């Protein structure tokens, strides 16, 4: 048994706002305190952590990060220069590894844990290569993980959607989504630029919500509504996880608003919203549309989002949004890797550097922070950098400081291109996040949005993932180096250093549907896939510690 005593606890799900409270841990779970019996160190195998004067929070949860799988590995492969100067040396409890914006799997686990994060979701797994995602997650220590299955440009999904018979269409789609999730051992449905990736493969330009997309002539709107419907019918805990169309393009906030409008009243998670909140300027540039987008979110509590804050410095952009990556390559002249996953999706990788003196980058930076500050309900907005697209996740403490410390934020604004004030209103925003709000956007909120009832809080029954920080004026320093991090009841980080190693769980779902490919599609699979159907499903061997989260 492990007992954390006298800490100031921030546990928003249980309404604890800084009260001094003891946390008891047994068997990897948080348990109710047994009366007032003082636990004595050394007795009854009780280990005590004296958290007097320290801040105790649930372990951090990253709802959207690219940490494992084919395109992350392409990024590592493409950029050895990202790795030379950033490495860990092997110790008895730590493997060696390298990488800054695309750390190796071991280092990814250590770096997250060293910030107090204990759960991370890989945001994009193409089903055909899902085995690869799981192989990497198997090698990612100290974290509970899961992955989202890409479906927004899947041929079989589009084929089903092209069925004119409405009820058959819905049923088939439900079965197909369930099967794709099951085969890929995914946790949620990920949609990336629905229809747009496929359209680009045909050498065509960007799509609007109602542009028919070859080869089945279904529209992005149909894909989106169809998948959202299937997700609801399957009672998945996390709604459609959407990377909307027109990412990064001036004027795209209209598409973002139209997308939200199409799903108003239903649940939806919009990822890296910063990249989708640009208003066009007459000269072809963009300005912040954070007020419009945040305004809409404020009236629609059914939606959640994560920000995709950009961080100045190097980043490696990687996404299933192949057309975006191609245009970034053309724009920057930087190297570009692209991968086409036969029936399912595309993807691309381009390294780049965000610079405060670049006006577009400065505006992007400001838009991200504006969204944080303008969305009033912290349960609707979560901290991400869309790692490593907006910058590495290791910058989260810096973002937390930007949110909590207005003076620091204003000082950082001075580094920016001076014209940024003409295109954003960040300078006028004085809101500062409280510790409780930080606990919501980094833990409690993502847990709730993911439907993980035993995560993101410190009540009895929760997984014993705890981060203990020393309060400091400099919030970046505070969140960068927890005093303790406890994963599944085990102390894994002390004073910001990894002291123990273990591997976490993988979250899976089991939707109420037969776990097989709808019969009508078997022929297509056999004809058009390059592998046999029986070799498609990710075997149980690839998930050593599964945890199936029951559907609602």
């Amino acid at each position, binding site marked *: 048994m492990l007992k954390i005593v006298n800490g100031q606890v921030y546990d928003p799900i249980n309404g604890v706002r800084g009260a001094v409270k003891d946390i008891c841990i047994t068997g990897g779970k948080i348990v109710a305190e047994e009366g007032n019996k003082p636990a004595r160190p050394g007795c009854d195998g009780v280990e005590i952590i004296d958290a007097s004067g320290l801040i105790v929070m649930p372990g951090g949860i990253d709802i959207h990060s690219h940490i494992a799988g084919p395109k992350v590995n392409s990024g590592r492969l493409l950029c050895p220069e990202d790795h030379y100067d950033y490495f860990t040396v*092997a110790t008895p409890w730590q*493997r*060696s590894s390298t990488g800054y914006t695309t750390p190796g799997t071991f280092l990814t686990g250590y770096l997250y844990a060293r910030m107090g994060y204990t759960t991370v979701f890989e945001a994009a797994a193409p089903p055909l290569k899902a085995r690869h995602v799981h*192989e990497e997650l198997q*090698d990612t220590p100290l974290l509970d993980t899961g992955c989202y299955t890409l479906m927004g440009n899947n041929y079989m999904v589009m084929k089903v959607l092209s069925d004119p018979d409405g009820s058959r269409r819905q049923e088939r789609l439900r079965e197909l989504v369930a099967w794709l999730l099951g085969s890929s051992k995914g946790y949620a449905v990920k949609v990336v630029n629905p229809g747009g990736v496929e359209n680009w493969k045909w050498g065509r330009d960007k799509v609007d919500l109602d542009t028919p997309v070859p080869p089945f002539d279904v529209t992005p709107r149909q894909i989106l509504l169809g998948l959202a419907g299937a997700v609801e019918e399957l009672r998945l805990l996390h709604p459609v996880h959407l990377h909307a169309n027109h990412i990064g393009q001036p004027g795209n906030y209209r598409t973002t608003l139209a997308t939200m409008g199409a799903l108003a009243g239903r649940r939806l998670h919009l990822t890296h919203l910063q990249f989708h909140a640009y208003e066009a300027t007459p000269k072809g540039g963009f300005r912040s549309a954070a007020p419009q987008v945040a305004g809409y979110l404020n009236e629609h509590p059914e939606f959640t989002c994560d920000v995709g804050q950009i961080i100045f410095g190097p980043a490696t952009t990687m996404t299933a949004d192949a057309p975006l990556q191609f245009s970034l390559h053309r724009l920057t002249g930087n190297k570009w890797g692209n991968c086409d996953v036969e029936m399912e999706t595309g993807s691309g990788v381009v390294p780049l550097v965000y610079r405060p003196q670049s006006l577009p980058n400065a505006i992007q930076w400001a838009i991200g922070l504006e969204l944080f500050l303008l969305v009033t309900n912290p349960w609707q907005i979560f901290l991400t950098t869309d790692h490593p697209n907006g910058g590495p996740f290791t910058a989260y403490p810096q973002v937390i400081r930007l949110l909590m410390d207005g003076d620091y934020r204003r000082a950082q604004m001075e580094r920016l291109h001076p014209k940024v004030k003409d295109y954003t209103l960040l300078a006028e925003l004085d809101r500062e996040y409280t510790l409780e709000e930080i606990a919501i956007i980094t833990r409690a909120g993502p847990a709730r949005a993911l439907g993980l009832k035993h995560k993101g809080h410190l009540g009895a029954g929760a997984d014993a993932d705890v981060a203990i920080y020393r309060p400091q004026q400099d919030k970046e320093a505070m969140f960068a180096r927890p005093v303790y991090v406890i994963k599944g009841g085990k102390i894994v980080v002390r004073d910001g250093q990894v002291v123990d190693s273990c591997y976490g769980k993988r979250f899976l779902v089991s939707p109420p549907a037969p776990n097989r490919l709808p019969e009508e599609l078997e022929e297509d699979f056999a004809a058009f896939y390059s592998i*046999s159907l*029986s*070799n498609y499903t990710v075997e149980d061997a690839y998930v050593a510690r599964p945890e199936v989260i029951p559907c609602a």
Partner: protein
Amino acid sequence: MSIHKDVVCTFCSCLCDDLEVEVENNQITRVKSACAIGRNKLLHARSNLARLTAGNKTVSLDEALDIAAGILKQARFPLIYGLSSTTVEAQREAIAIGELIGATIDNPASY
């Protein structure tokens, strides 16, 4: 007799995964759908097997492992090479060994 369907051929990197393999008495007796080389490789998988030796003497696996561990631990600039026809699961272990002994790891992709 048992029939394995959708078998993956590991001969080359095409990894054709539609082979049908018949096994009888722990012997592969028939291979369908494979190319000539793949079929041959499967049919003769159990012939010409290597022998457990150390310094040309037959040894037990334990002894061989002891000798191998001794060589690798002592080496000051060891090389781990190959890994091109084995599983990722084995490759992982080889990398872990490489890290333990401070080796250089390379595979045929380097030339």
